[in-house]
């Protein structure tokens, strides 16, 4: 019976995606980019699919899907595995660069409690700026070499910034600018496009099958998935950023990953964050 409902949900998910496929005749309802309606439909889809899950619990990924996992996680949270990274991030954040400036000088409100506003669309540059990109730009502007986007220092810094914003609802704005809407739409398209040898899209796992198992793992719902970033994954026995999650997801479906912070990845993050608006920031998170 599971399979049949999965197929039904898959078609629901595809309908939800409402993609304007190249070459398909444009449908009146589909050729207008309407992020607000998308977010509403997206959130409704997950609420209907998981009526028992509290809305703010979706940010806990697989733990919101499985009671036993949830209990184990609650116990783990008393002694969270990301603690070492968080402490390192706190230290790094307050340590001045060689020129005497600090990260706080690059960010509004000194970088504290602002994670929920990233990624944002920069109208001057006409592109999406993620927190990771902003951090590396901050370093370069102050004459420091950039960090790797996937783990260690970058994860520690974003962990600390997320920690100071815990509980604040995700608050992504899409300015009334055709380039912003195009970036959003491009991210959405990337999210629903199948790719790789397994021919999976992001949505195949994270919209169609959250709570299902993939080998021993329980899949996380796409809703609120970015709110918990960066994460300590037991599978990695270490921390990873949003960039790391995107690249590894791509290689796991046997697709060729893009480079971290490529346009499309930043746009996907923009899309995913926008449709998770209103859910609390819960990063840094821990995942099996």
């Amino acid at each position, binding site marked *: 019976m599971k399979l049949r409902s999965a197929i039904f949900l898959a078609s629901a998910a595809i309908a939800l995606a409402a993609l304007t496929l190249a070459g398909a005749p444009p449908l009146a309802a589909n050729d207008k980019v309407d992020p607000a309606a998308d977010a509403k439909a997206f959130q409704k889809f997950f609420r209907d699919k998981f009526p028992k899950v509290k809305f703010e619990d979706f940010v806990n990924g697989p733990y919101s899907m499985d009671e036993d996992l949830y209990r184990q996680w609650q116990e783990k949270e*008393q*002694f969270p*595995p990301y*603690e*070492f990274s968080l*402490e390192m991030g706190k230290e790094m954040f307050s340590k001045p660069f060689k020129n005497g400036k600090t990260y706080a000088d690059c960010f509004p409100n000194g970088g504290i409690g602002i994670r929920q506003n990233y990624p944002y669309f920069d109208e001057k540059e006409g592109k999406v700026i993620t927190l990771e990109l902003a951090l590396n730009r901050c370093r370069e502007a102050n004459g420091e070499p950039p960090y790797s986007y996937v783990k260690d220092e970058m994860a520690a810094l974003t962990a600390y910034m997320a920690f100071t914003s815990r509980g604040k609802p995700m608050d992504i704005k899409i300015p009334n600018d055709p380039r912003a809407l195009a970036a959003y739409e491009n991210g959405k398209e990337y999210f629903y496009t199948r790719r790789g040898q397994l021919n999976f899209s992001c949505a195949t796992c994270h919209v169609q099958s959250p709570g299902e198992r993939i080998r021993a793992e329980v899949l996380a719902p796409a809703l609120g998935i970015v709110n918990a970033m960066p994460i300590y994954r037991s599978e990695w*026995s270490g921390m990873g950023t949003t960039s790391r999650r995107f690249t590894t997801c791509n290689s796991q479906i046997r697709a060729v990953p893009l480079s971290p912070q490529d346009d499309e990845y930043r746009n996907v993050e923009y899309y995913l964050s926008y449709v998770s608006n209103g859910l609390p920031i819960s990063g840094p998170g821990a995942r099996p």
Partner: protein
Amino acid sequence: MASTIRVRATSSGETTEVQALIQHPMDSGFVKDSKGELIPAHFIQQLTFEHDGKKVFTADWGGGVSKDPYVKFAFKGAKKGDELKISWVDNKGATDTTTAKIQ
């Protein structure tokens, strides 16, 4: 550098429950790095918890224990406010010690 050991010990009257998280690479010596070179073995060999000068818990570990190990156990005979001394020594002779108050 902060201590590599995090401890939380809580007394519930008769027994004291201790949880500890230790930051350590715990390299088994069988894993290769990205260049294909073996990463030399580097693991904690002995971890001890002392209460009142008496060892209450000892772990003899090898390379099979995971990175950043987590330990949880309970023992009798301590009360709130007592001190617990935790120390480890690894196969390279490095060591770290910390004390924690039982809450």
